[in-house]
C-alpha cells in the first residue's frame, strides 16, 4: 500500500492572524485532494486560539476569496485574512 501523494501550499498570514500564528509565511504539506477547510483545521491545530476567529477570517487562494470547500493544488498561495481595516 502506498501513501497518497502530498501537496505543498504556501500560506500567508496577516495582521492579528500573523501575530497569533507567530509567522508571516510558511509552507504546509497537505494530503492530495485537501480543501481550504482542511488547511484551516491544520492551522487551528497549530494554534488553537485561531478558532476564536473562525467566523470572521476569510481565505483567499491565489488572490481570490474562497469558501472552505475550495480544492487546493500544489503550489497554491493561500492567504489568511482577518477583517480588513484600511482607510
Amino acid at each position: 500500500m502506498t501513501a497518497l501523494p502530498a501537496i505543498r501550499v504556501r500560506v500567508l498570514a496577516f495582521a492579528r492572524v500573523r501575530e497569533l500564528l507567530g509567522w508571516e509565511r510558511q509552507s504546509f504539506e497537505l494530503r492530495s485532494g485537501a480543501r481550504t477547510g482542511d488547511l484551516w483545521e491544520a492551522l487551528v491545530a497549530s494554534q488553537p486560539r485561531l478558532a476564536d476567529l473562525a467566523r470572521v477570517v476569510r481565505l483567499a487562494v491565489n488572490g481570490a476569496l474562497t469558501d472552505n470547500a475550495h480544492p487546493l493544488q500544489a503550489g497554491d498561495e493561500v492567504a489568511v485574512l482577518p477583517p480588513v481595516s484600511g482607510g
Partner: protein
Amino acid sequence: MTIALVHDAIDTAALARSVGNEACGALATFQGVVRAQSEGRSVTGLFYEAYVPMALAEMERIAAEVRARFIDSHLAMVHRLGELRVGEVSVAVAVAAPHRAEAFEACRYAIDELKRRVPIWKLERYAEGAPAWRENCLHPAESDA
C-alpha cells in the same frame, strides 16, 4: 490612472493634478488622516499592512467599477503602508468628472469600497496600553457583493 500602495508621504496635490482634464468641470478629493483619538483613547500612531498583490487588484477593480458607473470620470487612489504619525494622510482619492454630483459620488464610492473590501489592516498604537488591530466590518466582502 494612479492606483498605488506607498511607504512614503502621499503627494495629494500631484494626485489631484493627475486626474484633471479639460472635459471635467469637477474635481473631488478625499483624504483619510490619522486621528489623535480613537474611542476615547489617545492615539500616538498607526501601522498599516496589506496583502499587496490582492489589495492592488481589488483597488483596480474598484477603479474599473467607478469608470463603468460614472461615465467620463477619472480616478486616482493611493493608500499608505507602514508607520504613520498623527496628522499624516493614510489614504487619498481624487476623482475628476464632468459635473460635481458624479465627482462627489464616485469619490465616496471609491473610499467606501476600499474600506469595505481591500485587504489592508490597521494597528492602532496608544499612549497607554497594548496596540490593537482595528476592523472596518465583519468580513472582507466578495468583490461582486
